[in-house]
């Protein structure tokens, strides 16, 4: 019996059949012309097949020479113990939460993994933050050897903060043609992570690695394998993620964090608006004016919907619903555009109208910066799985902190990015016949940060919220991770080894500690006469009278003579004495309001780290207790205010605490030899599994014995 769906599905077939009959019966002249479109299909297909054959031919012909070249360059033939090693990283997956959920039977795949192989708490780095921990995962070394100590470093010449992991310098050589400038060099973009990651060493032994979104891989490493960069990849504006809010609201205040407010102007009617999206600086023009795209918004108030036209795209939005990725091509000069991706959401459609634009990600298909190795790897992934987030911190935590977006929007963002990541993982796994694959998922960390307030009674950031809709978000995320593991497990066999790990855990962030305020109150830091202590980035500090200051998220620097531009503390005994004094006074520091110990211990990094770069570390590392962290004000270099204050932002959980409080997790489908593994142990482990002796610079020890597991 024919159903309506049968009829519908057979319609195209009938049309094709009719076309074939028509072509077969039509005169010679008609046969000769197939028109643009169909013509393109024929010619394009021919071109594709031709290029394929050409590429394949070249590859086949070059293959013997490549093999000989690799054999000559190879240090020593590796004798792998396994076929594939797969790492799944869940940034921030907390050991205590994981264990509780396993005990409740909510993580069946991880439980199975633990039963079949092993589960351990994974010791993390000092400090317990993502860039540091994953750098130690990559290099098997402590921060003193890989040079990453924090998200932010400070320039000792200016005391201003700078990105710790990458240097992005401007182009300095131009050919000037009137107002037009032709850059004569590429911008200076350098990875500041030192030491050698394990995938580079594997590559030297001709073992392929696919490295997807492991933090601190911007710009990417060059090695025998493929890599998609992650943390510290900027957005198209060059920042670590600047959202935009186009609004008719008259407020002139700027956002505290990572956002800009742009006026949405009426365009002739009450429901028609225009604005300008300011993109990246145009290096081709004198003065680097921003590239711009006009935006038009037509509002349907009754339906709570809007139609946004931008750069040739028309996007239909419904109130509170995040759009898919929208491509933006900012015109630089004739024939040259800079590609980006953004997501939009109509956040208000009443008396006032507001439109949210997520940070403009560098387009993976046409990357304006080196975000992958080989350079076309991001384009390859984009062709395989569609557009995806490239920004280092891709989930827009800042917009949620600023209440521009809400819990639901943030949840959608994180889950969509997680889904993109999982597709990448499976694309990588599909094509990995032998070698290593590592994929890091960020959502757990972001969900921990932003929804922690709902799992803890009386968290100041959840004040007034009785029954939060996302109260179980963290649990849902962990269960989701378990699903990811399950799907990967199904695709592995006995010749493969799977590790599931996290770089650190998470705990509460109820109270912020302004270290600079404490240093000021205790006479270690001084302000210039009449200076406003609320100015950011320590601009109010009198350096000639300051002995210590806090920059970044994790520690305190001494104002050391010969190192800092206006240093006053003599290196040697004076510095050592000052450090000891600070460590003694900060260790066990009590929050007078709550009577709780806020800082467990202040660690002297001179004894904490080994390696050539330990001099770049903060002099003291602050090990906060549960519930405490550096305050928002101190993190942005503000001296003013109280030492302790409530954290009322959505960012309510954190791991910038005493690292012993927030271990990560390590699962493996094989037995591991250590009861107390450290994140630096993974790099020597993977090398050992591929039959390579770990180099001496690695601090970690292999977790699997050198015999066939």
């Amino acid at each position, binding site marked *: 019996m024919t159903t309506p769906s049968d009829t519908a599905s057979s319609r195209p077939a009938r049309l094709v059949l009719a076309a074939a009959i028509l072509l077969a019966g039509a005169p010679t*002249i008609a046969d000769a*012309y197939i028109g643009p479109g*169909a013509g*393109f299909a024929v010619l394009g297909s021919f071109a*594709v097949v031709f290029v*394929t054959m050409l590429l394949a031919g070249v590859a086949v012909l070059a293959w013997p020479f490549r093999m000989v070249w690799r054999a000559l360059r190879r240090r020593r033939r590796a004798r792998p113990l396994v076929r594939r090693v797969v790492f799944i990283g869940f940034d921030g997956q907390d050991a205590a939460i994981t264990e509780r959920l396993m005990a409740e039977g909510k993580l069946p795949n991880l439980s199975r993994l633990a039963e079949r192989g092993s589960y351990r708490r994974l010791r993390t780095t000092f400090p317990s933050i993502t860039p540091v921990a994953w750098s130690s995962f990559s290099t098997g070394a402590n921060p003193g050897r890989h040079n990453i100590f924090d998200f932010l470093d400070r320039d000792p010449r200016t005391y201003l903060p700078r990105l710790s992991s990458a240097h992005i310098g401007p182009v300095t050589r131009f050919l000037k043609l009137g107002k037009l400038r032709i850059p004569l060099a590429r911008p200076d973009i350098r990875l500041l992570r030192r030491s050698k990651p394990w995938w580079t060493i594997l590559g030297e032994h001709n073992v392929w690695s696919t490295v997807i979104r492991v933090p601190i891989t911007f710009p990417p490493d060059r090695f025998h394998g493929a890599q998609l960069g992650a943390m510290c990849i900027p957005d198209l504006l060059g920042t670590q993620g600047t959202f935009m809010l186009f609004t008719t609201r008259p407020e002139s205040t700027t956002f505290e964090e990572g956002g800009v407010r742009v006026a949405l102007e009426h365009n002739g009617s009450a429901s028609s608006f225009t604005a300008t999206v300011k993109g990246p600086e145009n290096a081709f023009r004198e003065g680097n004016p921003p590239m711009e795209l006009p935006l038009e918004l037509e509002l349907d108030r009754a339906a709570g919907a809007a139609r946004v036209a931008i750069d040739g795209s028309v996007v239909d939005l419904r109130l509170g619903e995040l759009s898919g990725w929208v491509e933006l091509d900012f015109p630089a000069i004739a024939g040259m555009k800079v590609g980006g991706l953004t997501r939009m959401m109509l956040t208000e459609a009443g008396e006032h109208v507001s439109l949210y634009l997520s940070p403009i990600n560098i387009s993976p298909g046409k990357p304006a910066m080196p975000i992958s190795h080989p350079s076309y790897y991001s384009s390859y992934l984009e062709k395989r799985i569609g557009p995806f987030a490239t920004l280092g911190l891709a989930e827009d935590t800042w917009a949620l902190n600023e209440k521009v977006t809400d819990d639901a929007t943030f949840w959608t963002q994180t889950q969509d990015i997680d889904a993109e990541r999982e597709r990448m993982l499976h694309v990588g796994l599909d*094509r990995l016949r032998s070698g290593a694959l590592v994929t890091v998922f960020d959502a757990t960390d972001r969900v921990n940060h932003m929804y922690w307030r709902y799992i803890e009674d009386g968290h100041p950031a959840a004040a007034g919220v009785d029954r939060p809709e996302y109260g179980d978000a963290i649990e849902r995320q962990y269960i989701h991770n378990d699903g990811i593991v399950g799907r990967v497990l199904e695709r592995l066999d006995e010749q493969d080894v799977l590790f599931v790990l996290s770089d650190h855990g998470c705990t509460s962030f109820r109270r912020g500690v302004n270290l600079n305020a404490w240093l000021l109150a205790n006479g270690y830091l001084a302000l210039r006469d009449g200076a406003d202590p609320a100015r950011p980035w320590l601009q109010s500090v009198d350096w000639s009278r300051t002995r210590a200051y806090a920059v970044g998220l994790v520690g305190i620097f001494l104002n050391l003579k010969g190192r800092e531009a206006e240093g006053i503390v003599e290196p040697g005994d004076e510095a050592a004495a000052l450090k000891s004094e600070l460590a003694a006074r900060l260790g066990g520091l009590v929050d007078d309001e709550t009577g709780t110990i806020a800082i467990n211990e202040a660690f002297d990094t001179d004894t904490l780290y080994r390696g050539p770069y330990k001099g770049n570390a903060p002099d003291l590392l602050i090990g906060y207790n549960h519930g405490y962290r550096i305050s928002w004000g101190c993190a942005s270099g503000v001296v003013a205010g109280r030492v302790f204050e409530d954290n009322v932002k959505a960012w309510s959980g954190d791991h910038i605490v005493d690292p012993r409080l927030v271990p990560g997790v390590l699962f493996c489908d094989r037995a591991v030899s250590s009861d107390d593994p450290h994140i630096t142990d993974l790099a020597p482990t993977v090398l050992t599994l591929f039959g390579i002796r770990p180099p001496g610079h690695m601090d970690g020890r292999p977790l699997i014995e050198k015999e066939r597991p």
Partner: protein
Amino acid sequence: MTALNRILGALVDWLQRPLGGAPPIVGLVLWSIPVSVFALWVFGKTSNQTRIAAVKNQIAAALFEIRLFNDDLRAIVRAQWEILGRVIHYQGLALVPMVFILPPLVLLMVQLHQYYGFRGLAPGESALLRVELAEPGGERPDLRIEVPEGLHLETPAVWVPALGELDWRIAADAAGDYQVGFVLGGETATKTVRVTDRVVRLSPERPPRELLAQLEWPSEPPLPADGAIRRITVGYPQGSVGLLGWAWEWSFAWMVVFFVLTMVIAVALKKPMGVEL
């Protein structure tokens, strides 16, 4: 079909009239623009744009894979197989819009072929004039040919019994449009012959009253279905297309040029028109 040909012929004649004195390349460029726009629009409306984009992306990804895994011969072979499969899929997706594009385009192309596929006779030039009878074989028919002033026959009729054909060489003396008459047993028929150096509608064949024949040769009304004469053809010289002193003489040359022009225009317009090809 006769009525359709009459309407289409009148329309194309009207549009083509200003181009009569221009070189063929000019007319082809001008015709290719609306044809490209039309074909692109139809392609965009009738094809599954999402799937076409997806298939093209996968083809591009497989091409990237050949570069990415150039040490791995198995990966290269796998990518090639994937490309082959995707290309076939892509072709299949392009078939549906072709169903909608082809009918109007075929009708137009046939009309344009009458202008650009051939050129008119020049004074002093001759061509083969052929009459095909409805019943081949048998005795030589008593067919009388009436040649107007301005043309003359260079040869007597040659009878090919097996094909039922009578052939003459007819030569042009002066420019003009002529009607050559044929009388056979009380039945009469005519055939136009044009002697001109302009790009004008030519009729290489007066077709029989059959659908496909009328579709291919729409410039003159068909001969009666029950008549003794089935078809009359004039062997006009092949048309030529050229630019800057270069010329390509072939009756289908215009079609190749037209094809390339429409492709180029389609490439230029696909983004503004938002069509995935």
